[in-house]
């Protein structure tokens, strides 16, 4: 078993010794700092931070209602503004002063999860294919270690990379958020929309659930890229197909929405948060249990294909 840790250590070492990996973290850091600067300069963040915050909210509501009246026929504006008004009312009724701070900023950066997915896909796409490209695969496979174990160590290393990167986004966002906007407290309440209207939940649990739901898609697309990388030994192909599917996944589902098998498409099942809000699921016939089973089946298929090709292959010259 200690042997396996050594293998994972080797793989992580190969990932983090390269400058290109650090460039990825550089990009993430720039996005987080840049986002904070933008938010800071374009939004009036202090407007609620005095004793008359209730009046500020009421004024806001009045403006929103006026907007609805102006664009009568626009359902989109009606929906957005109504939701905003309800949220403001919830703040007033439950006496929760709206605040903007580090926790709120971390929550907003859940969008960066798609960048984390992208970076993890790049790592997953290269981790097997690069060994073939460098020719070092021959030296890896002539050690007293089974191919299964080597492949497993590579997969686990990709997941650890994803975890590290995710933690980096969380912690760095919190630090940058605290520096720019201040900390709202150790675990302040955040008002969110749930199935039955608005509710206040703790910031940490809400952040964890937001990031957690995003992880589902990340893990599935990473496993997919890892499979393509192993089967075709081509990192560009793996990056290309995985990113394309990540972007086009929802469109693919929409196109085949009417088909009876639409619910079996991977992307119809990757958004587990849709079941938490309690509404109708996006694709007919899905449920939390159904989606989890579909995800597990896809996951196993991806893993089996990787494993099969990696174990079977004759390692010949390039």
């Amino acid at each position, binding site marked *: 078993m200690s042997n396996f840790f050594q293998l994972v250590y080797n793989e992580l070492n*190969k990932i983090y010794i390269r400058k290109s990996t650090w460039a990825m973290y550089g990009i993430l850091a720039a996005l987080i700092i840049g986002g904070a600067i933008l938010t800071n300069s374009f939004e009036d963040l202090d407007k609620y931070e005095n004793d008359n915050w209730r009046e500020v909210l009421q004024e806001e509501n009045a403006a929103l209602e006026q907007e609805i009246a102006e664009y009568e026929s626009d359902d989109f504006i009606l929906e957005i503004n109504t939701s905003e008004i309800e949220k403001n009312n919830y703040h007033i009724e439950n006496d929760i002063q709206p605040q903007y701070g580090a926790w709120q900023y971390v929550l907003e950066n859940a969008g960066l999860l798609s960048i984390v997915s992208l970076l993890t896909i790049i790592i997953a796409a290269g981790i097997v294919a690069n060994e073939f490209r460098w*020719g070092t695969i021959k030296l890896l496979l002539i050690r007293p270690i089974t191919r299964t174990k080597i492949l497993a160590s590579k997969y686990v290393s990709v997941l650890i990379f994803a975890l590290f990167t995710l933690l980096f986004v969380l912690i760095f966002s919190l630090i940058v958020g605290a520096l720019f906007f201040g900390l709202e407290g150790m675990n302040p309440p955040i008002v969110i929309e749930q199935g039955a209207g608005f509710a206040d939940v703790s910031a940490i649990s809400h952040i964890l659930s937001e990031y957690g739901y995003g992880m589902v898609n990340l893990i599935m697309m990473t496993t997919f890229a890892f499979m393509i990388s192993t089967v075709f030994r081509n990192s560009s192909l793996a990056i290309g197909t995985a990113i394309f599917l990540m972007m086009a996944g929802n469109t693919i589902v929409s196109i085949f929405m009417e088909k009876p098998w639409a619910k079996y498409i991977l992307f119809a099942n990757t958004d587990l948060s849709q079941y938490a809000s309690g509404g109708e699921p996006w694709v007919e016939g899905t449920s939390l249990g159904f989606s989890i089973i579909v995800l597990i089946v896809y996951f196993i298929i991806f893993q089996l294909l990787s494993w099969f090709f990696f174990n079977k292959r004759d390692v010949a*010259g390039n």
Partner: protein
Amino acid sequence: MTEVAMELIDLKKTIGKKEIIKGLSFTINRGEVFGFIGPNGAGKTTTIRMMVGLMSITDGDVRILGNSIKQNFKKAIREVGAIVENPEMYPFMTGRQNLLHFARMIPGIDKERINEVIAVVGLEKVINQKAGKYSLGMRQRLGIAQALLHKPSILILDEPTNGLDPAGIREIRHYIRKLATEENVAVIISSHLLSEIELMCDRIGIIKNGELIATQLVNDTTPDNINLTQVTLEATPINQAIDLLKTNYEIDVVQEGNQLIFQSEKEIIPNVIKTFVKHEIAVYQVGVSKATLEDKFFDLIGENTIE
């Protein structure tokens, strides 16, 4: 008592419908340097890939210290250190980082052993430079270092002198001989450089079109090979000399300028000279050359054809 290090048993490889390796059987003993030679495309590298488990074996088996590479891969490969084709390393890591990387894959290799191996291949000065900046010769040395880390019983080197300068070749040759005699390692070297093989190996196996066509001791002095001695003789008058050789020794002679070339047993040369002196033929020089490995090689494989 010789101990068998590696045994190939009717080893076959078929890719598609083409039979690449057509049943190789031979053994390599501990303490022996075995040269594996053949023209390009003969199947040397394919055979080596099967020896180390990089390629699946269609039929037959490879046994390493009795362990089948097919059934008992981990135990068998533990005893093998190898470079297959070019010595490729991680270009973004230093020589030492590369060695540490491979050392972590096998339990029981400490820092001391790594330093020892670095010293053996003479890379002390550049070991902390990136392997991507190494010359082919330096990479070759790093490749050998990597193969030696776990003190294998069998060392497999594919074209090990590729890219080395003459001094480097001599060093590596010296080290390979030392490994074989002092540490009882079986060394398998593939090459097409016949002169190299001759200097380094105890025995050679010649492979052509996936078949082993001969194995031969390099310093072979069996009666069979005495016939291969070639004599060059300069004497006047030349015609009388030819006649004498024909009548007294029944030897066919080829005349090249004022030189006579013939094949004979080494033992009769003194007699020939005595006879010449008796008949007052002046002998200017006598040359004896052993047929080289290269001659044997071309005798055995015919012309250099690739099918």
